[in-house]
């Protein structure tokens, strides 16, 4: 949906404004225009709705993928129940989630080098079932953090999942480590 009419304040301006990253004078100019222009005001309302809905969407714990400590910290502040597994290369770890867990977090260790782009591939019985790639730097503990909705894990049968983390560095791809999760199904308290 686009708002017709005045295009003076584009979504890029609103993004920078909402992120708090505009110089004061530019921010003040945007504010003056926003409060007097119905078209740009309507565009701001759309943007505001997106930003307001984001915590609910993330708290629904359906948004997985590579994450950082900052995101885990906010989830923790909001009381999201997280089950964490720290894995070193070659690890074979029994893995299960409790019925009230909302998110499973994997802290993947290994020789991450100076890479800032990683791919995590998941395989079941040799067949690739998912692949995720992102630019992300290793955290302060030398880990790459990956999150999976616990609801998805609960649906898995008793199965062995092989995870392979690869690093992209200098135009080349290299294996960081392989980790095995032995999914034991749902646990009840």
């Amino acid at each position, binding site marked *: 949906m686009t708002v017709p009419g005045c295009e003076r304040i584009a979504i890029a301006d609103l993004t*920078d404004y909402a992120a708090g990253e505009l110089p004061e004078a530019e921010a003040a100019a945007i504010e003056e225009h926003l409060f007097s222009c119905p078209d740009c005001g309507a565009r701001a309302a759309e943007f505001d709705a997106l930003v307001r809905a984001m915590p609910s969407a993330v708290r629904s714990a359906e948004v997985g993928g590579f994450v950082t400590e*900052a995101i885990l910290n906010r989830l923790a502040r909001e009381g999201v129940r997280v089950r964490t597994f720290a894995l070193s290369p070659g690890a074979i770890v029994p893995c299960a989630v409790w019925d009230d867990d909302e998110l499973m977090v994997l802290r993947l260790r290994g020789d991450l080098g100076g890479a800032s782009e990683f791919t995590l591939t998941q395989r079941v019985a040799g067949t690739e079932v998912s692949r995720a790639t992102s630019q992300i730097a290793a955290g302060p503990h030398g880990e790459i953090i990956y999150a999976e909705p616990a609801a998805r894990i609960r649906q898995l049968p008793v199965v062995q999942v092989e995870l392979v983390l690869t690093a992209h560095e200098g135009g080349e791809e290299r294996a960081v480590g392989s980790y095995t999760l032995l999914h034991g199904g749902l646990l009840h308290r």
Partner: protein
Amino acid sequence: MPGPHLTIEAVSDEALARRIAGDPSGSTDAEEAELYRRFAPRVRMYGRRHLQDSAAADDLAQNVLLLTIERLRAGEVRRPEEIGSFILGTSRMMAHAERRVARRRDALAARFMEPAPGTAPTSSAALDAPRLAACLRALAGRDRLVVLLTFYAEREAPRIAEDLGVSPGAVRAIRHRAMARLRDCVLGGARP
């Protein structure tokens, strides 16, 4: 009440303000609700930027619009044709006061109180959260991470650049593109 040929959504901001100011109290509920619908998101955006707290921004939007409506009813808004400027000025004044109170509250809390556990924001989401979650999942991993770090973890571009191993300028460019895609996906009905 809206005129015979205009729905309330088509009435100008100035006309809304004049009706609230001029019509008998109690007969302008629709106009007041429309004024709130139009301006509350702008005041919330203003509040998030200046108060850096979503719940405080929600409160600011309510308080600013309540005061605006009271002032209109009392005939204290001299230029209804500039109602947007009045609302912006009120937002600035109330946000400034809120920052002062917050500073005092924080200073007292630091002296006398144990750290309080974090609480979930109370504001209700105006959009369908599952749809937004689906659209977030549909973004490329790096784009999703930049959006979440900005608007969920509330990190600034230089810190995000460190987290991702890219430049702050690249973070901004990624964020512009990702928010445009997210908006098209959520509001435009594009398939996630």
